[in-house]
């Protein structure tokens, strides 16, 4: 059998941890091979070894049967290995062509950069793989999905035979994801091979041929996608049975907890981004806000939580006005907030887990008295919550930075839920997390609902919205354009509503 890439018995250590322990992965020519694992399982480390960024302590890498030593990314490039990074490495004010040829510029006889020739080549490549990229467009003017295609083109332009995609769908809209799948298929048709790093099982089922699973740094095995299903993959990845159907009883909405009336908010650039928005969330229900990123969701949450001033309108919590109150006042009046960007807002990464647990309550008894902190109480609480919410950390004294994304998020949720707020706002609570953590977080949200709390969920993942919400409010251009029940709708319809097209249901914003 022909393998283009073989990584055999790879072992990579970092001080204190073994990131990869005896992992094997063999990539056949012309296949899409998924590399599946939870966050922190060692997928990125393995691929960085292949790309020459790390040197393995043990193991062998073979390219087309020949043993090679890849000591830096240039060697990887020469061997025809290209990487499409999760975070794009593009110069914004440059054009597509300029970005692609950067560091590898074709010269004319007089030594000037031959842009014309490069543009032509890129156009040809783009046409051949159906990428539809305009070589002369500037990066800052094109969409995220398009930027990703530029990254793909960059690897192709440098003659990559094997493309590594690192979590490529994390930043894309549902429509863009579908298009990416098409592109991958056409790459395969042209004889390329692909390694797809992901933890999204649906994508694997849809597009991949085989799948290698790693768990906690160890290789679990490789399966044919044809012969498996989502449940099996999930249990391979997590190491136990995972349920996908979020089990929940029907909601029993009671009194209105949050009521937003005619809210207007400007964003950081002073542009109206929330425009006379109306919204109600009742005790005992989860309201999911569906929408494409950038339609005012962030500003809505910031206005409710006091992080941004609103221009006009009213925000009431339990019939009390909390419009333009400080974040502390809002928190104290009973709002919990799982922020969208956990590194920026949710945690002080250099603080210990314990210190992060009391981020909003440090000034209250028993955590401090007369401004003097009581470390004993703080860490006692932290340990209690670590236990209760299954936060995997060496200790409560470990800096939050050292935790995996899922465990950081669990710590935040533990903190927010433990305060028992009447309204829990969860913004993108599962972004970048693996199935195990997602399952846990969804369960916690529903538990809160069942306790009679109001939950406001903001997510760009339609799956999540459809799965968890009791009511879906579709947000477009700063307004709630539609309100539907999850059982009465589907992804296609939501996708259209989110894109702003009017349907018969539109206009009902209550």
């Amino acid at each position, binding site marked *: 059998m022909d393998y283009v890439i073989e990584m055999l018995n790879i072992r990579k250590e970092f001080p204190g941890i073994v990131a990869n322990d005896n992992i094997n992965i063999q990539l056949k020519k012309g296949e899409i091979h998924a590399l599946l694992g939870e966050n922190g399982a060692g997928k990125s480390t393995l691929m960085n070894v292949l790309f020459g960024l*790390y040197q393995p302590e043990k193991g062998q890498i073979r390219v087309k049967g020949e043993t090679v030593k890849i000591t830096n990314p240039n060697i990887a490039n020469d061997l025809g290995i290209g990487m499409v990074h999760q975070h794009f490495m593009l110069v914004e004010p440059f054009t597509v062509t300029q970005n692609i040829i950067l560091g590898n510029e074709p010269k004319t006889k007089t030594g000037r950069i031959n842009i014309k020739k490069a543009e032509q080549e890129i156009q040809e490549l783009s046409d051949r793989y159906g990428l539809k990229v305009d070589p002369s467009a500037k990066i800052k003017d094109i969409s995220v999905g398009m930027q990703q295609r530029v990254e793909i083109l960059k690897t192709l332009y440098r003659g990559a035979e094997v493309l590594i995609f690192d979590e490529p769908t994390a930043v894309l809209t549902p429509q863009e994801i579908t298009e990416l799948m098409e592109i991958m298929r056409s790459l395969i048709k042209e004889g390329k091979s692909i390694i797809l790093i992901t933890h999204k099982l649906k994508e694997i089922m849809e597009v991949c041929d085989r799948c290698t699973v790693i768990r906690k740094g160890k290789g679990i095995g490789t399966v044919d996608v044809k012969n498996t299903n989502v449940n099996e993959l999930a249990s391979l990845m997590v190491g136990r049975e995972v349920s996908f159907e979020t089990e929940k009883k029907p909601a029993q909405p009671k009194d209105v907890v949050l009521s937003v009336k005619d809210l207007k908010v400007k964003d950081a650039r002073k542009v109206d981004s929330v425009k006379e928005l109306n919204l109600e969330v009742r005790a005992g229900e989860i309201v999911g806000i569906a929408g494409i990123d950038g339609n005012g969701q962030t500003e809505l949450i910031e206005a409710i939580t006091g992080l941004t001033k609103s221009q006009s309108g009213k925000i009431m919590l339990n019939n009390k006005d909390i419009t333009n109150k400080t*974040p502390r006042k809002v928190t104290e009046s009973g709002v919990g907030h799982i922020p969208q960007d956990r590194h920026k807002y949710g945690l002080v990464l250099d603080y210990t887990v314990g210190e992060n647990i009391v981020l909003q309550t440090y000034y209250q008894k028993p955590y401090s008295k007369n401004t*003097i*902190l009581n470390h004993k109480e703080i860490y006692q609480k932290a340990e209690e919550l670590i236990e209760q919410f299954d936060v995997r950390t060496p200790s409560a004294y470990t800096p939050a930075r050292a935790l995996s994304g899922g465990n950081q998020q669990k710590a935040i949720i533990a903190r927010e839920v433990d305060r028992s707020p009447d309204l829990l706002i969860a913004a993108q609570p599962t972004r970048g997390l693996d199935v195990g953590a997602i399952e846990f977080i969804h369960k916690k949200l529903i538990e809160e609902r069942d306790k009679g709390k109001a939950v406001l969920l903001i997510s760009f993942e339609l799956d999540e919205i459809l799965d968890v919400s009791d009511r879906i409010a579709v947000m477009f251009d700063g307004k709630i354009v539609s309100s539907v029940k999850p059982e009465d709708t589907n992804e296609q319809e939501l996708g259209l509503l989110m894109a702003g097209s009017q349907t018969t249901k539109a206009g009902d914003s209550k």
Partner: protein
Amino acid sequence: MTSNNKLFALIIPVISVFLGLLAGAIIMLLSGYNPIEGYSALWRGAFGDAFTIGETIRRTTPLILTGLAVAFAFRSGLFNIGAEGQVIVGWLAAVWVGLAIEAPMIIHLPLAVLAGALAGGLWGFVPGLLKAKLGVHEVIITIMMNYIALYISNEIIRSVLTDHATKTDQIASSASLASEWLQGLTYYSRIHYGFLIAIFAAVIMWFLIQRTTIGYELKAVGFNQHASKYSGMNVSKNIIISMVIAGGFAGLAGAMEGLGTYGNIHLMSGFTNLGFDGIAVALLGANNAFGVVLAALLFGVLKEGAGEMPTGAGVPTELVDIIIALIIFFVASSYIIRWALLRFKKEGK
């Protein structure tokens, strides 16, 4: 990992000091001086007898305080270049109170010390306010405030405190930190009780930072302003508090000079450099209260001992300055190395 980091923070300054001394030795050797003689003269100059020990402690005292001033602000993510100006106004205010008021020592001395701290605090408040409310970078403002302090205090000495003289009268003995007993012990060195205040200030800083909600907020703001705002802290207030306390430390350093070392204030023909040395002290002390005390002591020893090197071993003072600069250089570059190492670690995750 935390214990590893702590060890790291301890070892790196020690190694850099060692490297600095080593490089200094090589330079001495290359320029034809005997490094062993040079360093033994340095040692004699700092610890040779009671007088030099007294002077070393005296020299260390204000450096501890300016080191704290820089380190404290740094803990909340602010770079206090203004310790220099805060020292000058603290000095001026302390001497002013020492001259203008008649009161028993038990009131007069604390009042004068407090005046120094308050003046320094005020000098920290202005950049803190501008940073918090208008987002003006504190480095620019504090540098400017240094000049304002220098020229204003010179003018006040000339026109208000004296009639166009170069220095003020000596302060009343009821406001003096000087101690005949200590001076007698140390062959009339200028050692004074201020070192107790400096040590106490270090303990205060440690307590504030580690044990109180104020320190908790200040550090949080230093690490991550967004998360601090999210969690309900008043970021502006914390920036101002941090600069005021930092300025207060530096103001105390000025009070030490005014009430202890000199007993007056003289026209300054340039900066005292206490504030600028404080930056290096804070860097070497890893912005930790205890580390600052040790770093200040090292600087005190180097600077005091340096005086003996020209007369004692024929090594020119310029060379001594080079050695001190080299130590700072190695500390600074070790900071870069440590930063790089930590980054490397993080990415390895």
